[in-house]
């Protein structure tokens, strides 16, 4: 390795340096985005940021045709964020971004970038306090410890934790998404906080944060399933099926479920009280019946497009199994079986919680009826914490990364032809969507087989 390489590695081994670089990159990109967007028709800022900002403006500026529609809406004298077309998020996000209009238009971007940074800090603390010491203890138990080797171990843990946190903090996908104004980092932070308290065994806080995360976006509810087994196993479990059921359903897990559900329902009731049915529909109900007919990674898109209920189209007489296959709800079956199943199967020991949540999220994304690049952040978030528990040779690691990226690149190349060149490549795009499902399933299987616990 060259001198420059050594210097770079030394710099990246210090978490403070990584934090400084991460903050500088994000501030630089946000400032650049302001300069770029003022001068170019093609914006750096994501279209979603415009959606959030507009929704925030509608909240701040109630008017005729724009008012909160809940029973308590008039008490609060606020506008309706759902006046903004395509705003399908919790009203809390719009409220959070109201400073965009009275403080600075880039406030939201700074907020999302800050969430990235805090997430990175949480990862580092989890790695230093829990994950790496448990692995180091296992290795150290095989040889006598001395004061020097303890110090070396602590120093080594800190270096490793810094490098692993850098996988998130210095990941171009992560910092470009937050500085472009996507709100994914808020949910990432909520999920990581939930995991943080779960790994520390603080189950009440975990339950509350799980409720908040699920309010923010529905899918984190699956993590609660994995938590049940871990909570139950802390008091020991009897053998066999009875013992397993007893570990999942007992006083402590019921309490956990009730606290989490109460948080989720409480937030939902409050939002409904102010913003009414539009909140319920746009935040939750829409996603149950949505038909994403436009091309995306999921192979379901082409079937949805071809069988879209166009006006005036005569109803086809089909056997019942084909009606079932065409239902917008059918995709939930494999998705929920695998996602919930992974929680039940792998949520048995606290040390496996990160792995369980990773697998649950990965299958959720693979089998979702719509998938865009941002969805991958939902599970890559766990990688820095999970990597120390994986045993993969460099050759296989390269292969997994190549297949993971390669299947996406294959799809993107075809999607470009459709979207920007207008070529009829629907069929080819659908085939590549199938390859994406197969490729990502294979990568997940490999990572599962590499997990050592």
């Amino acid at each position, binding site marked *: 390795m060259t001198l420059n390489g050594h210097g770079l590695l030394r710099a990246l081994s210090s978490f403070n340096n990584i934090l400084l670089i991460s903050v500088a990159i994000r501030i630089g990109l946000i400032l650049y985005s302001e300069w770029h967007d003022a001068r170019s028709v093609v914006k750096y800022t994501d279209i979603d940021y415009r959606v959030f900002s507009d929704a925030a403006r509608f909240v701040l500026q109630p008017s005729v045709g724009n008012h909160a529609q809940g029973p308590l809406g008039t008490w609060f004298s606020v506008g309706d964020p759902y006046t903004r077309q395509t705003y399908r998020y919790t009203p809390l996000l719009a409220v959070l971004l109201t400073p965009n209009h009275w403080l600075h238009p880039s406030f939201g971007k700074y907020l999302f970038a800050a969430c990235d940074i805090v997430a990175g800090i949480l990862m580092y603390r989890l790695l230093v306090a829990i994950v790496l010491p448990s692995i180091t203890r296992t290795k150290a138990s095989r040889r006598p410890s001395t004061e020097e080797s303890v110090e070396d171990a602590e120093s080594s843990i800190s270096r490793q934790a810094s490098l692993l946190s850098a996988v998130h903090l210095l990941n171009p996908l992560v910092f470009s998404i937050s500085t472009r104004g996507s709100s994914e980092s808020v949910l990432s932070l909520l999920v990581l906080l939930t995991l943080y308290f779960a790994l520390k065994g603080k189950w009440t806080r975990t339950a509350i944060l799980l409720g908040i995360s699920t309010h923010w976006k529905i899918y984190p509810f699956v993590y609660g399933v994995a938590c049940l087994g871990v909570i139950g196993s802390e008091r020991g479990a009897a053998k066999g099926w009875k013992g397993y059921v007893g570990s999942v359903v007992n006083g402590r897990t019921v309490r956990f479920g009730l606290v989490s559900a109460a948080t989720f329902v409480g937030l939902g009731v409050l939002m409904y009280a102010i913003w009414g049915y539009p909140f319920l529909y746009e935040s939750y109900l829409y996603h149950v019946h949505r038909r994403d007919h436009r091309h995306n990674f999921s192979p379901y898109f082409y079937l949805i497009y*071809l069988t*879209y209920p166009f006006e005036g189209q005569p109803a086809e007489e089909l056997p019942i199994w084909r009606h079932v296959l065409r239902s917008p709800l059918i*995709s939930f079956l494999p998705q929920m079986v695998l996602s919930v199943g992974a929680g039940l199967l792998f949520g048995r020991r606290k040390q496996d919680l990160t792995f369980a949540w990773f697998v649950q999220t990965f299958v959720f994304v693979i089998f979702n009826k719509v998938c865009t690049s941002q969805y991958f952040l939902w599970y890559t978030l766990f990688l820095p914490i999970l990597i120390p528990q994986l045993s993969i040779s460099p050759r296989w690691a390269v292969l997994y990364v190549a297949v993971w990226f390669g299947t996406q690149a294959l799809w993107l190349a075809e999607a470009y032809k459709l979207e920007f060149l207008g070529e009829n490549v629907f069929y080819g795009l659908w085939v590549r969507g199938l390859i994406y499902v*197969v490729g990502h399933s294979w990568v997940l299987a490999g990572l599962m087989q590499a997990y050592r616990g």
Partner: protein
Amino acid sequence: MTSSQPVLLSSRDDDKGYHFKYTTRLSSPNEPNCSIHLRYLFPPDIYVDPYELQDQLRHPFWLNDTINLEHPVGTSDTLSWTELQVSLVGSEKPDPLIVIPLHTRYGKPTESRVGYITLPQPLGLWRCPLSDTHSPLSSTLFPKNGVHGGESNAIRVPLGLRSHIDQVELGTAVVVTAAFLYLLSVFYTTTHRLYASGEKTKRN
């Protein structure tokens, strides 16, 4: 009233892809007190994003309510034409260029690989005050026949093929099911490896 008339011609920058610019070139007499108003009618196959217009169009405009930006053409929400009106005051630069970003919706699947969307030329209204300031404005439509038409612009769009339905239905079901069963088997072997060996250790 001025004797000369403005002339307009609209064209799209590209005839492929789902996103393009519709550019109207105006050749207008230099009358600072006159204003030009353009009226565009777009078929249901086209959608106009009002938020994008706010960012990119430098002139006051009015757009009839566009709902469901995400739907394909041919649903109950996407049967109507879109009307866009743009105003240019006389103090604008001579021969202004009006650029409108447009997007095509997915078309109804057919047995044909491509479909064509026709974009009619916009209609213009040229309004000038008479010499007597108490008189109403005089207005002139252009093109002279006052109807949308003239040279129109055709856009080619790819369409899904209905003949693919059976293959896509079966193929999606088979691959998703295969991936599902494959991962279930990996779940089983991983669970056995992680927890069965732990139970054996406890028993020993």
